């Protein structure tokens, strides 16, 4: 079968190139912007996902991981005594100040526990040993802190909340939504550095259940014993934290706006070029009708042209988005393009291009048939 749509599209290579690039630009825009957004959200919950905890006991009505109130550390004993609880430990999460060699100060989010080892956090220690944290005035910084703190290495000293601590290890991948660098230190050391805020207090109780334990039953019991706290599963707490950033920072709206603008750019470019091409070839469409073609034949042709533009445009837009990943990583940002999102963008691109072709089709469907006789 002769494919008039395809041949016409390829016959006018410049126009085809412009259409494809327009679609590609829109695809890259959507993939990169949403990928960055997902990357930020991933940062906001990465520690929740990495802690090997079944339940998180938080202060009442805490909105997200980073914004917590402290509560009595003795609450942990009431949790440990619940049947089915294999392990329950206090976790401190607190903002502290790091004095830089320049004289400036930066903020760090401190995670402090008596023993990090059973919980699997920090999960990637590049230099040093977690056990060292318990032996004195020691701290571990995440490598991502280098941008804020300047370069540091194991063995260097930094002043945290006025106390000189030795860097005994460097972690990686531990990040926060706000890009404030993460630090890890011993539980007592954190309380020592901020006695007014943290003495006798904890930010969270992490709960690990024994195998075969009914999680809901334990959760109900924790809630009964600690009525001034909330209890979440890891997944629930991650969702609550993530939703906070989406709903309260305008980032969700920003992501929506980006997708909308990306779609708009794609639709306008495809619709405009297809429409211009249709107007240029309007007599040919009239001829298709005159020699026996129907409106359906013409729509199929336009739809095929739009689908090809969508296909090429998607591939040309997807590749730069992937190639940008290492560049974006250098800026200490994460670009996460999930396979499901990729499929959704591909499908969306196709649907929007097909919708764009409807504008051109409306014009063709209403042409004066006698047009074919005009010179």
């Amino acid at each position, binding site marked *: 079968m002769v494919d008039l749509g395809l*041949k016409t599209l390829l016959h*006018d290579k410049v126009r085809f190139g412009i259409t494809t690039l327009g679609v590609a630009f829109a695809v890259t825009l959507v993939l990169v912007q949403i990928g960055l957004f997902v990357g930020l959200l991933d940062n906001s919950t990465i520690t929740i996902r990495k802690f090997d905890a079944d339940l998180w006991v938080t202060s009442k009505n805490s909105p997200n991981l980073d914004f917590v109130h402290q509560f009595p550390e003795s609450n942990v004993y009431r949790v440990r005594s619940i049947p089915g609880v294999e392990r329950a430990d206090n976790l401190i999460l607190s903002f502290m100040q790091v004095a830089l060699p320049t004289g400036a100060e930066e903020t760090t989010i401190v995670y402090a526990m008596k023993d990090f080892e059973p919980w699997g956090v920090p999960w990637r220690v590049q230099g040093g040993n977690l056990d060292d944290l318990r032996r004195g005035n020691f701290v571990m910084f995440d490598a991502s802190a280098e941008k804020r703190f300047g370069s540091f290495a194991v063995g260097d000293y930094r002043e945290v909340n006025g106390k000189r601590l030795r860097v005994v290890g460097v972690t990686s991948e531990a990040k926060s939504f706000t890009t404030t660098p993460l630090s890890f230190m011993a539980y007592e050391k954190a309380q020592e550095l901020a006695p007014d805020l943290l003495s006798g207090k904890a930010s969270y109780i992490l709960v690990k259940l024994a195998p075969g334990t009914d999680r809901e039953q334990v959760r109900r019991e924790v809630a009964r014993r600690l009525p001034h706290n909330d209890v979440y599963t890891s997944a629930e707490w991650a969702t609550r934290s993530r939703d906070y950033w989406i709903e309260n920072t305008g980032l969700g709206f920003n992501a929506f706006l980006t997708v909308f603008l990306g779609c708009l750019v794609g639709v306008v470019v495809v619709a405009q070029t297809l429409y211009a091409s249709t107007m240029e070839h309007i007599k*040919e469409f009239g001829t298709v*009708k*005159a020699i*026996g073609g129907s409106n359906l034949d013409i729509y199929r042709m336009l739809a095929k042209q739009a689908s090809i533009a969508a296909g090429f445009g998607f591939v040309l837009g997807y590749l730069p988005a992937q190639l940008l990943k290492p560049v974006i990583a250098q800026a200490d940002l994460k670009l996460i393009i999930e396979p499901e999102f990729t499929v959704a963008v591909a499908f969306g691109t196709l649907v929007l291009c097909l919708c764009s072709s409807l504008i051109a089709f409306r014009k063709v469907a209403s042409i004066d048939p006698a047009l074919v006789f005009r*010179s």
Partner: protein
Amino acid sequence: MFSVVAEEVTKVFREGRDDVPVLKGASLSIAPGEIVSLEGPSGSGKTTFLSILGCLLSPTSGHISIAGETLEAKRPAQLQTIRKRHIGFVFQQFNLFPALSALENVEYALNLKGVPGKAAYEQALALIERVGLADRAKFLPRDLSGGQKQRVAIARALAAEPSVLLADEPTANLDINVAETILDLFVELAQRDQRALLIVTHDPKVRRVVDRTVRIEGGRIAA
């Protein structure tokens, strides 16, 4: 039986709030194998009449029958069916698809008329040979002369063997010698396959090959 029958055909166009009658009761019949030329001044309704006979437009009133099939004004879908089955067009500007080769232009028309893949290719090749362009089959229209383009257009019009050929100023863009050759080809195609052929023209050379000439003036067939 006539291949084309048009009786008391009227066509009124709406322009703003005004009704503009273009055809005011035009009648014409063409027998199989008959060649008729339609002449008339600008604005006389030639193109509108041709569009209606070619099932590109529905008449406002009147009776139309093409190859025995009566056109019903209230069934626009029927226009396409009749056009597809029974009518071949040849245009003044050739109207070839610039992205398709000569052969593909014919093959595509066959595809539209329901002839699939290989069969369409073989029939298109035969039609291209029939109009004497076998050696130009793979050429794009831009690489063909005016006469060659018109031959391709004729081959395309013959796709699926229509019983009626409608030609709009087919010699207007051709030089004298080429025009004569094209007209001879028309005669051969009409007579050999008993096709009704209506040629709308201002070209006096056409009179040499037609069986009769009719004139349209003021929306009516004058003679």
